[in-house]
């Protein structure tokens, strides 16, 4: 490779410092999204086609399910959220990301570890702890990498220009603080010095719920709090609501960990505390929703892809917040717990709230960092449309199927084979929804790849010119 490497005219030196690591994290996360959805689709097919690839041990349903969840949560949601979070800290602080080279290297290690880890789940089987499925040694390395990245976020925050902090910063810092705490404590208590008996499930629940509500949700909310007013051009309606919403979220979300263990072999008081916290989560959901919906610039929706994704996310946030509170009480959990209904809530949370919030940031940030717009204008429309259709089918099929499954299971006179048989149609519909959803994510990959080629073209052109010159010269002889 001895081609000349000139700098393109529009390259911005400050862009490389902040831009390259962020673009790397965002790009990597898109690949994980598609890989994770591919695995999830295969898992979903196996829910109703048990003979599919039955002779291959690597792709049992349990392994595919764990591998897809790991790829999506640690590959897509976490990585894209982290990339955006670091960008938000730099942007709101009026500074650059601290040690961008280290961020880049840590990102590389993260992806390498996760690739090995997902392969490890398929080859060796999941760990059995749903929030920590990777093989133990890899989890340790991943925890170190995550901690380094989160510390770099704090270093970026420390470099900020003086001035009042904004909600987006509070939420990003919450996430960056919660992730290492969750990862380290659960590692220590589940892997290094494993606790005995059902305490494992308690810690697993605490860690799993923490990953959703204290790591992913704050990153998504930070994105919404920043981009909705920023793109819409209207400041937040109520800073007081923002403060209340933030502290209430932090307080109640951190106590919801045991809510799904209703009726399980764990102390009843902690389940009760978590149920109360899940219901009280309505308070921050109301404050945050009001603040976000009140500034929603409906007129601007037509011209900004990012804003449309943010709108989808804000609506899903309100709905999922209400659903979490509604299904938390004992009477609801006794029927709907352990069915497909919580799967629907989880999917709405991840793919309806967190995903679109991150994509809002993605569509807003990538053009700024790359120095050019996304080449295809139809692709984001297709992306959003298919996301909504696919997600709708997924959530409705899991929701309705889980509802019926729950009531059938609650009636001891209905035999289990009958319950399972009636669930079939809903599982098949879910596969259809997931297929539409997964297909709907391919435009963003194509668009990003095209953008990447366009960005690299200035580097490639002189080489290409050199090549054509020599070839025409050769032809002229």
């Amino acid at each position: 490779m001895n081609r000349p490497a000139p700098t393109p005219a529009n390259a911005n030196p400050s862009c490389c410092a902040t831009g390259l690591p962020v673009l790397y994290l965002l790009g990597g996360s898109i690949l994980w999204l598609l890989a994770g959805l591919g695995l999830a689709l295969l898992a979903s097919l196996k829910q109703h086609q048990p003979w599919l690839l039955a002779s291959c041990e690597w792709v049992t349903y349990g392994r595919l399910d764990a591998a897809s969840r790991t790829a999506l949560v640690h590959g897509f949601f976490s990585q894209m959220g982290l990339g955006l979070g670091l960008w938000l800290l730099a942007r709101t602080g009026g500074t650059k990301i601290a040690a961008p080279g280290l961020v880049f290297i840590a990102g590389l290690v993260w992806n390498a570890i996760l690739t090995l880890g997902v392969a490890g789940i398929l080859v060796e089987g999941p760990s059995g702890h749903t929030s920590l499925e990777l093989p133990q040694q890899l989890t340790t390395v991943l925890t170190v990498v995550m901690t380094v990245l989160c510390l770099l976020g704090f270093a970026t925050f420390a470099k900020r220009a003086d001035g009042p902090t904004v909600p987006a910063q509070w939420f990003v810092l919450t996430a960056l603080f919660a992730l290492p705490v969750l990862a380290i404590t659960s590692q220590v208590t589940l892997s290094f010095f494993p606790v005995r008996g059902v305490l494992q499930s308690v810690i697993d629940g605490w860690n799993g719920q923490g990953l959703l509500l204290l790591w992913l949700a704050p990153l998504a909310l930070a994105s919404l709090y920043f981009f909705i007013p920023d793109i819409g051009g209207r400041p937040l309606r109520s800073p007081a609501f923002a403060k209340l919403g933030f502290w209430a979220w932090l307080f109640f979300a951190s106590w919801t960990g045991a809510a799904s263990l209703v009726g399980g072999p764990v102390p009843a008081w902690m389940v009760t505390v978590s149920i109360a916290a899940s219901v009280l989560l309505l308070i921050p959901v109301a404050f945050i929703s009001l603040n976000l919906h009140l500034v929603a610039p409906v007129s601007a929706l037509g011209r900004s892809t990012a804003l449309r994704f943010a709108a989808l996310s804000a609506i899903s946030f309100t709905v999922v917040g209400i659903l979490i509170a509604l299904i938390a009480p004992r009477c609801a959990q006794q029927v709907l717990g352990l069915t497909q209904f919580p799967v629907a809530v989880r999917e709405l949370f991840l793919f309806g709230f967190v995903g679109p919030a991150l994509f809002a940031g993605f569509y807003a940030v990538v053009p700024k960092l790359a120095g050019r717009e996304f080449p295809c204008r139809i692709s984001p429309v297709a992306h959003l449309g298919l996301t909504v259709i696919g997600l709708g089918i997924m959530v409705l099929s899991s929701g309705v199927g889980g509802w019926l499954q729950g009531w059938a299971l609650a009636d001891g006179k209905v035999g289990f084979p009958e319950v399972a048989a009636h669930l079939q149609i809903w599982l098949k519909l879910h596969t259809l929804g997931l297929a539409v959803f997964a297909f709907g994510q391919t435009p963003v990959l194509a668009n990003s790849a095209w953008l990447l080629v366009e960005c690299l073209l200035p580097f490639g052109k002189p080489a290409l010119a050199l090549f054509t010159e020599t070839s025409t010269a050769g032809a002229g002889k």
Partner: protein
Amino acid sequence: MNHGPVLFLGLVTTLVASWTGLVALPHRQLGALQPDVSTNAAGAVVSYPAARSGEAAQGAEVYRSLGCVACHTQQVRPENGGGDIARGWGKRRTVARDHLFDPTVLLGSSRLGPDLANYGERLGTNSFPLVRLYDPSSVATNSTCAPVTFLFEKRPIRSSGPSSEALVLKGTAAPPAGSEVVPTLRARQLAAYLRSLSTTVELPEALLPLVEDANAPK
């Protein structure tokens, strides 16, 4: 809220409080739990739960590694909380002590398949879970449980005669004439584990329902 320290202090306090409440306190309550020692009807001292035998303990590892927990729970919920006991999945609710010696506790969170807390009881002494593992639909029609055929060896019947361990299979799952399906070591371990699944033991915190003794003198 313009100062980093306030935020930092708030974050530390919240997470420490949550960890104390949802991890440390339950550990204080359950961490020192011991097996229940009692005297059975024959006068022998029994301890429950007992650690699993070698083969069944290895089977727990196979169960974990195949990801069976994705579809099967191992928790019977109390009588007033669902139809578990009425359906015959257990005679009493599952309590913390039942899982005391599980190396990895696999309570499960989805019931795409039936609960297995008392699967060993349901199998009884005569039936053999291996056929179920090889071809679930031969035992439960339309079962969506994935067959684990990779834990079995399909081989020509040896000159010394068919193996005593060969599965008795019917229908489409049956091997062609002259071949037999024999479980591998891991299949036998998994079967031993499944047979060991039982919580039908009375504990002070979870009593078994009273049974009317039909032979009792009137």
